[in-house]
């Protein structure tokens, strides 16, 4: 039980990195990128390919991230920008088509074999610390969580304190007002897409270090990312981290119940959060509080 809680929490960093990219893209471009998970897979396969050429894992990640950032820029420049003005339907359709293209392209190039970075990492992939109370914690998951938090903190600093970050925040708050203040919307969009895809690639590499990856794994990653974003609340980086941790916890606890429970737990938490949000909106629409019970007690107060 405690073991499951720790594993779940450690998963949170990876989910948060995956989700932060999706959230940023949605915040700035108002696009839910249905190919986000597939882009993460592209990043993971790129790292694997470079490692296969004999590169060290760290160097491969360091090279892949900026390269995927450039891919993101190109994607925004030549594909997504065209769909932005055409309503909500087209971006969904285009990114869904892109997802199918990427999955099958990866399958065509790399085949169906499940791969992992575990071999390349050597000792790190199974090394662990033993905490008091005989709790074993893998070094790699801890490292992943620390790296995830560090990356999110870095992103937060960039968004808070740099010129680019201010432009991104302005554009996501109100793109027209931002444009009136002289912010180059196209540039901001490209930057946001680059960061988003870069984060996706990092998350893909993180996944490859602790599990096997395969070309058709992207859609599941997209679902996980979206669930973390919704659970944590859209628009806040630390909310995304919280969402990632809660998602990881729900999955680990679900896995305790049944072998199918890992994903089911996450899905059910997501649907519950979404349902709760709709319910509170509905109650607010009626001018009531969220819980019917509290309402009754208020009536009692009024009577005397």
């Amino acid at each position, binding site marked *: 039980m405690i073991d499951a809680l720790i594993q779940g929490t450690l998963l949170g960093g990876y989910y948060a990195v995956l989700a932060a990219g999706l959230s940023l893209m949605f915040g700035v471009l108002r696009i839910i990128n249905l190919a986000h998970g597939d882009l993460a897979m592209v990043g993971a396969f790129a790292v694997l390919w470079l490692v296969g050429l004999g590169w060290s894992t760290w160097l491969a990640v360091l090279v892949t991230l900026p390269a995927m950032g450039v891919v993101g820029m190109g994607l925004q420049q030549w594909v997504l920008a065209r*769909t932005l003005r055409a309503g909500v*339907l*087209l971006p*969904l359709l285009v990114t869904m*088509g892109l*997802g199918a293209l990427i999955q*099958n392209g990866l399958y065509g190039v790399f085949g169906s074999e499940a791969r992992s970075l575990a071999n390349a990492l050597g000792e790190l992939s199974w090394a662990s610390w033993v905490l008091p109370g005989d709790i074993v914690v893998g070094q790699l998951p801890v490292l992943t969580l620390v790296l995830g938090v560090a990356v999110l903190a870095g992103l937060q600093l960039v968004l808070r304190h740099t010129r680019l970050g201010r432009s991104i925040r302005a554009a996501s708050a109100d793109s027209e007002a931002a444009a009136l203040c002289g912010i180059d919307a196209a540039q901001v969009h490209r930057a946001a897409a680059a960061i988003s895809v870069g984060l996706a690639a990092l998350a893909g590499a993180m996944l490859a270090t602790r599990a096997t990856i395969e070309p058709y794994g992207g859609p599941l990653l997209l679902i996980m990312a979206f669930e973390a974003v919704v659970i944590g609340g859209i628009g806040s980086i630390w909310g995304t981290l919280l969402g990632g941790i809660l998602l990881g916890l729900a999955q680990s606890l679900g896995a305790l119940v049944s072998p199918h429970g890992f994903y*089911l737990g996450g899905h059910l938490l997501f649907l519950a959060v979404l349902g709760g949000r*709709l319910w509170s909106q509905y109650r607010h629409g009626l001018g009531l509080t969220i819980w019917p019970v509290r309402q009754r007690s208020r009536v009692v107060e009024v009577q005397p």
Partner: protein
Amino acid sequence: MKHPITWLMVMAVLLAALPWMLGANAVDKLTSLFILMLLASTWGLLAGQAGLVSVGQQAFFGLGAYFALRLVDGGWSAYPSLLAGAIGAAFVAWVLSFFVLRLKDGEFAIATWVVAEVIRILVMLDPLVQGETGTSLLALNQVDPDLRRNIGFWMSLGSLVFMVGLTVWLLRSAVGTATRAMGEDDEAAASLGVQVMPTRRRVYVLASLGAALAGVAWLASAITFLPRTNFGVQWSVLMLFMALVGGLRSQWGPLLGALLLFALQESLGHLGAWYLAGLGAVAMVFALWLPRGLAGLWDDWRARRTAPSLTTTTPSITQLSRSTTP
């Protein structure tokens, strides 16, 4: 002969006689074509007309088949179970609609997908399905193979005609006007007095019934039920391709898209993953440059022919206007 439903009936009667003229292979192929058309037209109704991009219609495709298997296991005979299964799946869609239809755009797309995944996992927990292994509709093995093939053909044809007829009738009624208004801009439609929720619910349940009918017709001809295949998200990708390439905003476009997909499958399907990657690429190209699909091209060509003096400008992506073919 002017009314499209009359046309549809005549076509249906002519097509229904085909099993007596064609070989077994051709009948099988046509059955799968009709199933694709059924999926395309209902997804086109959902995404193109009502503006609801769902990535989760495979839930009903699989669920109809699962309910049928359960009923057969409970002692029902095969064909009534298939029909009841589809209706059961549509009922589930009606219940779910109270939740998912309150979500917007991308959230709707992914929430429907998650719901489909949850349904798949729950179905896999049922001992009857045996997890990943799946099961078969063994009751159908007692039926003579030729008769079974023909019944599968008539089932898919009947479902297609029924759904297309219902869609044509619906879109010509006040509901159709409301649906199109809502698809353009739901808030504006609501302010003009369109009952957005009931209209959405009708379209969603109807489209889900279509997906479920396709699912049971698929089960009737394939016999095997594999959770990963029957609930696979690839059905949504295929639906997207057919509806988008054929013409989302047109009623007949998705049928055209299904025909194209069928032809591609027959000619290039052996390329495997690269063929599917190509489908994704073609879908992107259409979404970016020809968002009105083949039906849009046809409209432009007709417009140019009827008014040859006017130089028609190529439609820009911002003018996603509705197809003029009914």
